[in-house]
């Protein structure tokens, strides 16, 4: 018998609806587990146990009155700390926002509240989502439950680790260049970066607006699909949100890939890809072939420029997005005001931001400067268009594209943090989906020893249905999902 805190979201909803358990019992069990695991994992920046239990009791009351419960009734949801929740501290794991309490709920928080989910806390991340290891957090790193000496990936590393450690059933991530898929891969859970415009960004603290999406993370493809069904949808408050009728993504999970055409871009297995990763991902592709799909190797020459294109665009946008953190209205402020405002701004920003954030602001500022704009930013936009076209062409031929999520398995904490370029290289397989606005999912596809490896499946814009079905079919016919980390 699994413990309550280990239940999948789907099971929690059924048990609460059928009154086999109460939301309060379940949420209490989650917090017991958090007390047990958190000192080793450090997945959370803020926990809101009282509020969560209160919310659970409200849901139980609703159930006892015979009212219809929402699609996520009672389910524990951990929220990446770059997503605003009203009256809950939202730090982006930065000293700059150490005491920032948003006066409003993000659109996705409103949506899960309507479906009776229970927010349990805010998860650790790389500062302002700038990183792939959750090491740049002002509050210290998160530890990978599969190997506590290793990183959980990032930037949504707290969300990935919380899922792997059974501290939550669902977790929000946000993906600018792989920030959902990377920790999903490193923690052996499932994570989706939705099509750009599918999920409202209203309430997501911006890192690089034109690239990022909030997305679901869960312990199974089914839970991810369920979660996505709840949070997707048009929002007039986000001008980049797309008018799409709401869909129930769970209906596309058919356990059947007969006739599916898979493209395998060579560039996804480029220099720097570890042998273990290459082997496990190819095994997964062969597995899908066994299940009735066919595959073909393809080449996207434009992908060679994806990483540099990504970093120019992301840093440029970041340099502007983060300008508002000057300490005047909220956030970190040095307690002295004997100088002019520009000196005060500089001091607040020098101390309030960590090294990686300062580096990216500087690089982005440079890339947008007079004389460099057309050389870097405009050129990056052009390459982005080329990459998008290459993908469009591919999706006329293939249902999905498959490759590794990360080129290497989880690395040691401290191993790469002094070498930014080596760390940036880890994003090589994930950034193309952000540049092209495509949906992509990471599903567990095996291990290198005890270290998880994830497979990335990409689809054409708004074809999450195809991508989810392939992932689900693979998960159904393999056992990786059932393997648990050694963490007690």
């Amino acid at each position, binding site marked *: 018998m699994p413990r309550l805190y280990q239940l999948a979201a789907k099971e929690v909803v059924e048990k609460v609806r059928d009154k086999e358990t109460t939301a309060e019992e379940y949420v209490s069990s989650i917090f017991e587990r958090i007390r047990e695991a958190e000192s080793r994992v450090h997945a959370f920046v803020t926990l809101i146990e009282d509020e969560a239990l209160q919310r659970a009791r409200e849901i139980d009351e609703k159930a006892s009155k015979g009212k219809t419960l929402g699609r996520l009734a009672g389910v524990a949801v951990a929220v990446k700390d770059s997503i605003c929740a009203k009256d809950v501290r939202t730090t982006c794991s930065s000293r700059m926002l150490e005491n920032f309490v*948003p006066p409003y709920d993000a659109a996705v928080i409103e949506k899960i509240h309507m479906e009776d989910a229970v927010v349990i806390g805010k998860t650790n991340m790389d500062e302002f989502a700038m990183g792939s290891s959750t090491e740049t957090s002002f509050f210290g790193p998160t530890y990978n439950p599969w190997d506590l000496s290793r990183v959980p990936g990032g930037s949504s590393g707290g969300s990935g680790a919380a899922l792997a450690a059974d501290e939550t059933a669902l977790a929000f991530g946000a993906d600018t260049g792989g920030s959902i898929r990377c920790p999903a891969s490193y923690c052996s859970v499932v994570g989706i970066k939705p099509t750009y415009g599918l999920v409202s960004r209203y309430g997501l603290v911006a890192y690089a607006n034109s690239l990022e999406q909030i997305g679901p993370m869960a312990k199974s493809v089914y839970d991810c699909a369920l979660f996505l069904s709840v949070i997707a949808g048009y929002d007039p408050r986000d001008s980049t949100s797309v008018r799409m009728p709401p869909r129930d993504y769970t209906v596309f999970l058919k356990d059947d890939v007969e006739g599916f055409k898979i493209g395998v871009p060579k560039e996804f297995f480029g220099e720097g890809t570890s042998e273990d990763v290459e082997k496990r991902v190819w095994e997964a592709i062969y597995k899908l072939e066994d299940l009735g799909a066919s595959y073909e190797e393809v080449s996207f020459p434009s992908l060679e420029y994806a990483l540099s294109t990504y970093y120019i665009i992301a840093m440029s*946008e970041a*340099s502007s997005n983060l300008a508002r953190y000057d300490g005047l209205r909220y956030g970190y402020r040095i307690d002295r005001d004997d100088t002019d405002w520009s000196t005060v701004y500089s001091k607040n920003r020098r101390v309030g931001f960590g090294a990686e954030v300062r580096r990216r602001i500087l690089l982005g500022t440079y890339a947008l*400067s007079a004389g460099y704009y057309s050389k870097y930013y*405009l050129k990056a936009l052009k390459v982005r268009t080329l990459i998008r076209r290459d993908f469009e062409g591919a999706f006329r031929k293939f249902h999905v594209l498959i490759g590794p999520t990360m080129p290497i398995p989880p690395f040691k904490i401290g191993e790469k943090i002094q070498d930014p370029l080596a760390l940036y290289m880890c994003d090589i397989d994930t950034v193309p989906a952000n540049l092209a606005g495509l949906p992509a999912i990471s599903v567990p596809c095996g291990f290198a020893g005890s270290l998880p490896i994830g497979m990335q499946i990409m689809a054409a814009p708004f074809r999450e249905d195809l991508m989810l079905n392939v992932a689900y079919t693979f998960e159904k016919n393999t056992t990786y999902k059932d393997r648990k980390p050694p963490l007690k």
Partner: protein
Amino acid sequence: MNGMVMPEVKIGLEIHSQLTSLKTKLFCGCSSDYRGRDPNSLVCPVCLGVPGSLPVLNRKAVEGAIMAALALNCKISERMFFFRKNYYYPDMPKNFQISQYDRAGGAPLAVDGHLHIEVDGKRKRVQISRVHLEEDPGRLVHLGPIDQSPYTLVDYNRAGIALLEIVTEPDLNSPKEARIFLQRLRSILEHLEICDGSLEGAMRCDANISLAGGTRVEVKNISSFKEVERALSFEIMRQEDMLEKGLAVERETRHWDEVRRITITLRTKEEEHDYRYFPEPDLVPIMIAEDFIEEVGAQMPELPEARTRRFMLKYDLPRYDAEVLVGVKALADFFERCVELYNKPKEISNWMMSDLLRYLYENNLELSESKITPEHLVEMIQLIDEGVISGKIGKQVLPKIVLTGQPPRQIVGEEGLIKITSRETLERIVDQVFGENPKAVEDALVEEKTVHFLVGQIMKATKGKADPQLANQIILERLRVMKAEGKR
């Protein structure tokens, strides 16, 4: 000018005009009715730039801007973008302004227009380089002059108000031309009912000035059109003075100090901002369809040029009078309402042109700041036409109406200003004046033209209440009698 030839002056203007008829701000639903409200009471996460908030374009603002662009004979972009203008300043909540840009791949709302003005009877074409939309920053409040204030207070009520930026080529050749251009522009925007130029800060302007093809100097902070002529004249004088002394005019940005009435250095060339413009990723490109432009064009109200013509033809006004009235929409509306009430356009126009406007001008008042209504003016003219008061009394009564808003009939009654039309009373006064002015009577007996002096004395004795025609008549009668008696 010391007998020297005036060097050629080139002036280009950059006008910022709030779209005051909009109910809400440019990118959020906050009320735009900010004047006289408590500081920071009309704000929300969006206009405060709270992390996670996103802008949503106010469609009505686009309509208004298109209307203005059409009236200025501009080419409307099929596809327009918003850009971020990045610079740090405490009045900007995000430390960037959402604006538009004509370079770096940007397309402002409209380009390439023109406006004709009339200077000293000559028609002149002023080229409009571009018209675009942007958000107003907040307001900084100081105690006394900016460089002596012990603090700066920030009020974000104004932050996010829709601004129309209109930029001209340096086609204006004197401060007077600049003023005429601005008056014309104001009247157009008022007739389009998108900007009420009488509101404080609703129309502001920056100017760039160069002399004899020399270096361009920008003058900022010209907060009202009344200041324009003054600020430009000062700056031209300053540059002339430098050129005469053989000094080089530096390229710089100067600040118009309204109190001291001088321009002072704000930024030198080295301190110029690099605004690092790039496309605003939170707003999608706006497609402006041909039929939308046509639709907006069809709704276009009567413009000043057409209204001036109509005033000349329908009301038989001289061009000058028609232009002055139409120059400020409120005046033209006032006039037409008066004519509706009392069909004597010539008389009404005369009273407005001579007495009302002079009084307003001398006291630095907008029509909207005075208390006079069309009903008042018409009533006053009717009192004169009915013979109840003299025209001279009318001139006394008018300023009282403007100040108090009391109906003329009431003022006339309370102050005993009714015309003396009783022959008996006037005969008594004539006798008295004749007694006091024997020399004048002698003169009048010889030279009848000098009778005016005696009429004037009568008016003086009655404080203007005497019916001058009747007084004149009585005097002539008396003189005739005296002559007859003398012959005898």
